[in-house]
């Protein structure tokens, strides 16, 4: 009896978790303008609509631009922060880590309001720059965490060994510590990219029609009316997420094999 309860609740929960996307995403290939089953045939024409109808393609390009800029900036800021925090004493480390991680717990609407106002006053309003700035603050904590984790896992003996052989601080850093921490930077870069690429709320406050990213275009089309192109976009975004998970998996496996 208890086994039955367990399997029924597990199946229901698993269905609830996995089914929505598995059911909806195939409709991107449905040869009908209604989003219903049974499918009326297999077609790529909604992908054509995506590539031909503005502003879908331009917002995809915007998303890539903003996400690449964010990845670079967040790697720099989060990486420097992680390496600097490692050199601090106990309390310095606690306080500075809390500061660097804190954007993760601030509701994104609050960050959106704050940044829209402050960036607007500073005269950066609406451009790519303001989006990259905002996404950098959202992504830097993830880079910080990833790099910190990999630096904490390093064997301090390696640094001491290099020092005993006369390597300077800087030489030790860039020939021993940095190469060993590389997987942390790579993981952080992936986190930063996907965070920016999928971000909706802050971008809603900051983007203009010229700089609007793919999630923003998807959000406004969802409010407007449902069409198969929306599912095409959802499918494309899911594929990016899957690529991200694959890359993350590879990184972790390489890290474990070391």
């Amino acid at each position: 009896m208890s086994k039955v309860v367990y399997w029924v609740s597990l199946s229901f929960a698993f269905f609830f978790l996995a089914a929505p996307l598995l059911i909806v995403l195939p409709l991107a290939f449905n040869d009908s303008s209604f989003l219903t089953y049974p499918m009326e045939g297999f077609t790529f024409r909604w992908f054509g609509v995506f590539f031909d109808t503005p502003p879908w393609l331009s917002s995809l390009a915007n998303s890539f631009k903003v996400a690449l800029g964010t990845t670079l900036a967040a790697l720099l800021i989060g990486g420097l922060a992680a390496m600097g925090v490692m050199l601090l004493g106990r309390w310095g480390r606690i306080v500075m880590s809390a500061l660097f991680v804190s954007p993760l717990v601030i509701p994104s609407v609050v960050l959106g309001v704050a940044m829209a106002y402050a960036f607007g006053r500073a005269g950066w309003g609406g451009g790519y720059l303001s989006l990259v700035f905002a996404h950098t603050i959202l992504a830097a904590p993830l880079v910080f965490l990833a790099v910190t984790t990999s630096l904490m896992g390093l064997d301090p003996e390696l640094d001491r060994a290099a020092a005993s052989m006369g390597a300077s601080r800087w030489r030790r850093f860039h020939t021993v510590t940095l190469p060993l921490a590389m997987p942390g930077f790579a993981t952080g870069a992936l986190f930063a990219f996907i965070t920016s690429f999928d971000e909706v709320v802050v971008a809603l406050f900051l983007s203009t029609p010229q700089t609007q990213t793919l999630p923003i275009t998807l959000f406004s089309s969802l409010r407007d009316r449902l069409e198969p192109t929306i599912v095409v976009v959802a499918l494309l975004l899911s594929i990016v997420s899957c690529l991200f998970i694959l890359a993350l998996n590879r990184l972790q496996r390489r890290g474990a094999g070391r």
Partner: protein
Amino acid sequence: MPKLKNSQIAALTLLALPVLVYLALYLAPLASIGRLSVDNGALSQRFPALSARFGETEAPDDAAAAALLTDLKAMARTERAEAGRLFNQELGGMRSLIIDTGGAATQIEPTLSALTAFDPRWGEPAIWEVVRRNVEPITWRHFQRATGLKPSAEGGFEMSPGDDVYLRILLRTFVIGLQVTALTLLIGYPLAYAAATGSRRVQAVVLMAVLLSFWTSLLVRTTAWVVLLQTNGLLNGLLMWLNLIPEPLQLIFNRFGAVVAMTHVLLPFAILPMINVMRTIPAAQTQASRSLGAGPVESFLRVYFPQSLRGVAVGGGTVFILALGFYVTPALTGGPGDQMLSYYIADFVRRGLNWGMAAVLSIFLLVCVVALLVSGALLRRAFGWSRSSAASGGTG
């Protein structure tokens, strides 16, 4: 100690840029929310003398009249027109009053009687009240509107019926947060249990599904629910095909749609901490209780379940805190009566450009989230729970 000093210099060098960037792009914008919440708008900067006078006493007297005329004389004609327009939004007719008085400001003697002689409206306390309220450098009116509390004549606070709109929205935000938290825990528990104790294959499949869901864009998962729940959508189609319902049900743009979609989006945040805790519960304990004669249900309830509660608390807390700040999912799947605090914050900015109200509501939300985080940390300390297993919710 030259070595310590060296590392301090290195730390400062490395941290200088990140700290500067955080200050400029993060802390300063957050601080501007605090200022916006009490900012009295453009008029407060135009009347420095009058504002200073009202700082001493609020009664309209000769000194106030003189200060008003000084300020008006200092303004250009276009500035007076703009000030008049802003005052007119507060009280009809004030535009002409400000412009006329300003135009003749050099000829009017700086006394209240001369001012009243020029225009009898300056004798009305209501006019002075509007002027005073608008030239003050800071205002509590956004806080008063958001809480519904107004200073009463007796010195305390009073609340008129119907003024508690935003408190009701805050309450609704908490209720939806609790509904979603309860559902994610109910649905997530068996999944976490399977991922921690099932056979290798079950573990792998469940964990893969959870991680895929975790890393799929929130907007994509919300899109799936919008497609599933529409009136002519897949779920209604299935239910009608099964002859369970005669006509389509309203499944979206109401509480049901909002709660179901939010539950799905937040499910991984409940499951991952539960898995982490459940993996630390030794299987030998359950086996031991079984060998001592407990049935499977009793063994689960008395041995396994109490130990898993730590994960339930961390997962539930994470979901609740995240749910409080939700905007996108309820905006797309809920109705007008199911929008949460974030929706109104965004609305004040996007539609009305009312930064003051957006700032006050942002402070409400921020205070709730920080209070919950702090009480969560205190609870964890009180129960002696370690940090390491609790902190992994966000990283997957």
